[in-house]
Structures are given as C-alpha cells and as structure tokens.
C-alpha cells in the first residue's frame, strides 16, 4: 500500500522569507502523480501544485515550486516570498495512475504559520 509521510507537524516562516515543507512517500509503482493541497482556516481544500512522476522537470506555480526526487521518493514544497495568506495546513498527496479513477492518499499535514 502507498503511504505518504509529512514529518513536520508545524512550521513557521517570516513574511517575505522562503520555507520548504517536506514530504516522502512509499510506492512500488512507476506511474503516479503527486500533489500539494492547501487548507486554510476556511477549510476549503485548494490545489497548490501537481507533479507527474514521469516528468523530470520540477513543477512551479508562481511562488510555489517543488523538489521532486523520484529515486529518493521525496516531494518537497518550497514557498518563496511568503505571505500572510499562505498560513494554512498543507497536505502532500499521492495518486496512482491506473487509467481509471483512483484515490488520493494524503499525508498527515503540516501547519504553516506566517509571522510579521
């Protein structure tokens, strides 16, 4: 079974600084997707970034980028120029590519605080 581990329950960053959230996963498959979702206090689950395992290039979305290390099964999220609105729970998630619908397997989340 696939598992996703987020070893940092809480992180803190100052506004305008950079922070990296860690995620590791365990799978014996070669085709899969990885995601970071953000859950602010409003509770809405918001997609931050997505990475296909077959792509060597790391995904980027504005201030958000990932460091995808397939051999190490590591998928960290870097947030640059942190803003107060980035404060939220961040969940790393894995989804197997099966050709049909497949479930997301989530990590336990990292709570990010952004301070002035």
């Amino acid at each position, binding site marked *: 079974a696939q598992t996703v581990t987020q070893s940092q329950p809480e992180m803190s960053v100052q506004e305008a600084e950079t922070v990296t959230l860690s995620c590791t996963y365990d799978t014996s498959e070669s085709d899969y997707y990885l*995601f970071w*979702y953000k*859950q602010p206090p*409003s*509770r*809405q*689950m*918001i*997609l931050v970034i*997505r990475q*296909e395992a077959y792509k060597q290039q790391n995904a980027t979305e504005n201030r958000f980028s990932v460091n995808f290390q397939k051999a190490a099964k590591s998928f960290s999220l870097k947030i640059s120029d942190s803003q107060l609105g980035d404060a939220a*729970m961040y*969940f790393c998630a894995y*989804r197997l590519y099966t*050709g*049909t*619908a*497949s*479930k*997301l*397997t*989530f990590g*336990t*989340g990292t709570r990010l605080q952004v301070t002035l």
Partner: protein
Amino acid sequence: DTAVSQTPKYLVTQMGNDKSIKCEQNLGHDTMYWYKQDSKKFLKIMFSYNNKELIINETVPNRFSPKSPDKAHLNLHINSLELGDSAVYFCASSQVNLAPRDTQYFGPGTRLTVL
C-alpha cells in the same frame, strides 16, 4: 460560479439519526469522490463513482451509502449516526484520463457533529 458545492456546510444531529449530505459539481467531470477528515485533520477516501458507477469503496461501515443520480451529483446518506461519525466530509470531482482535469477538485466540506 461554484465548481463543487456541498449542502449543508454544517450539520448537527443526535446519535441514532439518519442524515444526508449532497454534492454537486458543474465542471463536467465524470468522477466524484467522498473523503472523510477526522479530528486530527487526516483525510481518507470513502467512495468514488465514475459515470454513476461505484468504483472505489474503502472499508466504510455499511451505514454509509453513497448515491449518484447522475454524474454531476453524489450524495452521502448516513444511517444510525454514531459519535465517531463526527468529522468533516469532503466531496471532490475529476475527469479521468484528461490531464490536468484528472486532478481532484474539492468542495467546501460539511462539518458533521453527532451529539
């Protein structure tokens, strides 16, 4: 326009009651999901429907019964509610095999409290 909507957003009820949560998506997706987020914020899949057909059914008590009248709707009915059912329930949708629409988009969640 709301992409994935759920009603109600909050639900408070007594143990033993039966309740339903409704989910609708207007994204034209063919697959819908129910996830449960417990008090420790852990998210876990419960069910998934593709074109009204059940395709994922994790180990969930049979008091939980999903119903999909069409591919834009997936409702969750819960019989004989128990204290342990208290959680936030999220609906999500995606379009299978059509990147990036195969990404799952979530509704706002329904916080269920069983007293």
